[in-house]
């Protein structure tokens, strides 16, 4: 088990759509859904392009830059496998391209209460067993030193 708390419960494989996303993490590329017709970025959970209605959404790499939308410092592990991982900071990020995604803030910042609106950049970490996940780091280094 790593400080991320895995991979014993980390069963994400076997989904033909999201397998590509996790392989992207291993290749250090953050993927999002993009319309093959109008090139709009779409939410992760959609079949039709919200812009033009086209059903041809495909994986495409995003910059990995975004703004922290909300966060919580998780103090109580929701499952035993995460006991060694608390406290950790769960965040939601609005990617520069538009889609929103959840991840951990890395490193966790359990003493910070001023994180909403901060600039973040994606990074990738091994969970264990050759599985990689996305995390985000604060890019405003002064802000990170409190």
């Amino acid at each position, binding site marked *: 088990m790593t400080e991320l708390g895995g991979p014993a419960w980390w069963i994400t494989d076997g*989904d033909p759509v999201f397998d590509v996303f996790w392989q992207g993490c291993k290749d250090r590329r953050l993927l999002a859904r993009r319309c093959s017709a109008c090139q709009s970025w779409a939410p*992760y959970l959609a079949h039709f392009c919200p812009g033009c209605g086209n059903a041809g959404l495909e994986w495409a790499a995003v910059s990995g830059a975004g703004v922290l939308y*909300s966060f919580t*410092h998780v103090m109580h592990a929701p499952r035993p496998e995460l006991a060694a991982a608390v406290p950790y900071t*769960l965040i939601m990020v609005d990617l520069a391209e538009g889609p929103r*995604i959840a*991840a951990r803030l890395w490193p966790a910042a359990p003493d910070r209460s001023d994180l909403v609106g901060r600039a973040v950049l994606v990074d990738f970490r091994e969970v264990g067993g050759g599985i990689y996940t996305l995390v985000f780091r604060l890019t405003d280094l002064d802000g990170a030193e409190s």
Partner: protein
Amino acid sequence: VTSQRDDIFIVGIGDLPFGKHPERNSLMLQAEAASLALSDAGLTLADVGGLISAGSRVDEALMPQATLAEYLGVSPAFSLAPGVGGASHCAAILHGALALRAGVVDTVLVVAGDNLRTGLSRRAAQASLADAAAVHPQLESPHGASMPALYALIAQRHCSVYGTSREQLADVAVAMRQYAVSNPYAAQRSPITRQDVLNARLIASPLGLLDCSPVSDGAAAFVLQRGDRSLPAGAVRVRGAAMRADAEHLSASRDITRTAARLTGDAVMRSAGMQPSDIDVLFAYDSFTIAVITQVEDLGFCAKGEGGAFVAEDALTLTGRLPTNTHGGLLSHGHPGRPGGIAHITEAVRQLRGSAVNQVDGAETALIHGAGGPMTAHATVALAVA
């Protein structure tokens, strides 16, 4: 009571105390509540034309409504499991009203009961909630998201954008507990103060243990009928019902502090010809303290962002501006899992009958809201004296 054929009434209610029922399984809890509700309505099992069941987390069934029908020994001509989590108790009234008005059945029994507290070990109950389908297995769960953490994301966004404080969140929990202290059917009856809520250990910031509803055992049921039936003295009128389930996952929501309760609340108010100021008692879905704050905003009792100030101090108590969850709510009356807020409905009926333990003087109207998942599915109901 004067009524038209298409008017819909709640004609009977039944409640078991919430807390621990180690000697009963989920179906037994459901059957006992059903029995109480039918008897309150002056009906028997033979009168059950339609059956709506929320099912059980402990005893998962492929067809929960059929499982309950076989256990009760009834053969309903209309049945369903609403499948919208904590919005199910309100959605059941919309579904039931449609079946009654269509003439498919003359009576609909709505039942919910589960033994999440004693039927599952504490740890298993926790894991069950962490694995709840509403936490996305690819986008949320791998990062350590759980239902409390998702509500915490909503709460933190609300605090950061609107300046809502932990003290304001705490005041919701204190008000719920104040009602529960005098309600023998409530699971949590020791008085608490704002400081107790603030001092409780943090689960997921800014939510502490007492900002979260406690896992309980419990059951409740109610009976719906059309206005062309002979109505018992305790009948309460359904003035409106609406639902909106257009997302399951919090990741799919663009603004997590603005929910579809705005749409369901507005639809119900319009069909009832009422405004928020006409509501005497509110039943908000208080799975977590933040939920009440967003709901008083989204249901139109105050502007977006003012919910924290609206609920602060004693605003939700009997002497406050908007008595809310007078049985103690999910936060102190208890949360048995699937049944969610069904006790919100039975308590609303008692308020309109004038027979509640914590009675709001002269209550004639009640608004009930249910929210499933991390406040992604919504249903609202307005009730009034017959």
